């Protein structure tokens, strides 16, 4: 095969894979009512990841991503997850975090916890449960280096799935205000003919976009 022929093959294969390396995202929402949740001037909300299960946990970078989406371009005040957890240590560690509103209500009987929550102005607590995982892998890429130069050759593909659910708790009346569920799937590819060329499907990124946008629609900042 000539160099031009090889280059054409790579370009065609790359185009096909670029088209295939996409993500499909599904977002489902459940609201307790149609009313938008108002957030007062000094009120804040906090996004927290569920980490009590041993075999998976909501990734901190995903929580930060949603926080950025929700706080961008509006007056909604999103507390940093780690700062919140550190400020209320040890009440929101994986072992101790409340799994339901009843437990949270019980926790707030402690005057120190209540006082700290009031100081932070927390009105809404959004719990995000789920994770992103690699579900399938195949192929391989080998690289070698020698006196004349180096390079890689091969083809590999991997599939990722993201599945998350966000639950909104209102701390004023201890009620569940709604849920948003997002699922995203995508395939990524690595083509190597000389240099490795990756085509990465933004599975977790798409899930963050979907979940963050939908959660933002729940709230309206006042003042």
């Amino acid at each position, binding site marked *: 095969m000539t160099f031009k022929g090889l280059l054409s093959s790579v370009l065609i294969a790359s185009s096909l894979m670029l088209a295939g390396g996409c993500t499909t995202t599904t977002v489902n929402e459940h609201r307790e009512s149609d009313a938008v949740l108002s957030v007062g001037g000094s009120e804040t909300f906090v996004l927290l990841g569920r980490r009590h299960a*041993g075999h998976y*946990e909501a*990734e901190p970078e995903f929580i930060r991503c949603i926080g950025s989406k929700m706080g961008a371009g509006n007056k909604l005040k999103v507390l940093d997850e780690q700062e919140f957890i*550190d400020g209320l*240590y040890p009440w929101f560690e*994986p*072992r101790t975090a409340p799994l339901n509103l009843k437990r949270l209500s019980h926790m707030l009987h402690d005057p*120190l916890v209540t006082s700290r929550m009031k100081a932070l102005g927390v009105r809404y607590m959004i719990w995000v449960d789920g994770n992103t995982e690699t579900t399938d892998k195949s192929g391989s890429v080998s690289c070698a280096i020698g006196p004349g130069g180096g390079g890689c050759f091969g083809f590999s593909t991997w599939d990722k799935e993201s599945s998350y659910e966000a639950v909104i708790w209102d701390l004023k009346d201890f009620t569940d205000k709604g849920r948003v569920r997002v699922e995203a799937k995508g395939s990524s590819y690595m083509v190597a003919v000389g240099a490795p060329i990756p085509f990465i499907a933004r599975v977790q990124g798409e899930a963050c976009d979907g979940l963050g946008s939908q959660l933002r629609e729940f709230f309206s900042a006042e003042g």
Partner: protein
Amino acid sequence: MKTKVVLLALIALLVGCATDVKVKGGVPAPLSEQLPFHVQLVLDDAFRSYQYIDDPERGKKVTFAVGEAQTDMFRVIAAGMFRQVTETAVQAPGVGDLILYPRVEEIQLATPFENKLKVFEVWIRYNLRVFDGSGAPLADWIMTSYGKTPTRFLSSDEDALNQAATVALRDAGARLTLELTRVPEIRQWLAENNR
């Protein structure tokens, strides 16, 4: 030139064969009511300099020094839980109303090689021996804590192991803060000495 290349390759190979970590990362001050007691916190040399070594037949050798980090954790938690804390390296009867003397019973590790994930898991089992002010034993509390690397996008095994160990120490601090006073013998002592 060839010799230099071979040497560099050997060094790279050796460096990649082991994970060596000195755990860094503290725990925050606990949000809890301070008990009105003077506590002697005994942190002996073995505890302060504790180092865990895992050298399996298959997989990388892992060494992590957790002594300094766990010493800091016990200091922070004790200061948050009790009105007065005196730290000693050797148990001294007559100092304090209560004596807390922790010891590491066991550490277990699950490495990325074993669990096929990009995370480390750490279990630390402490034996917290509690004595009254005169040195009479009150309780032996076995407390296990767990930590897992929370993120998979880290640049090195050392960072991942450090994160897992830090999470385990936070878990230990949480159990100390919330469960120590529920140990039956300690609860009884607190009730009898309530101020």
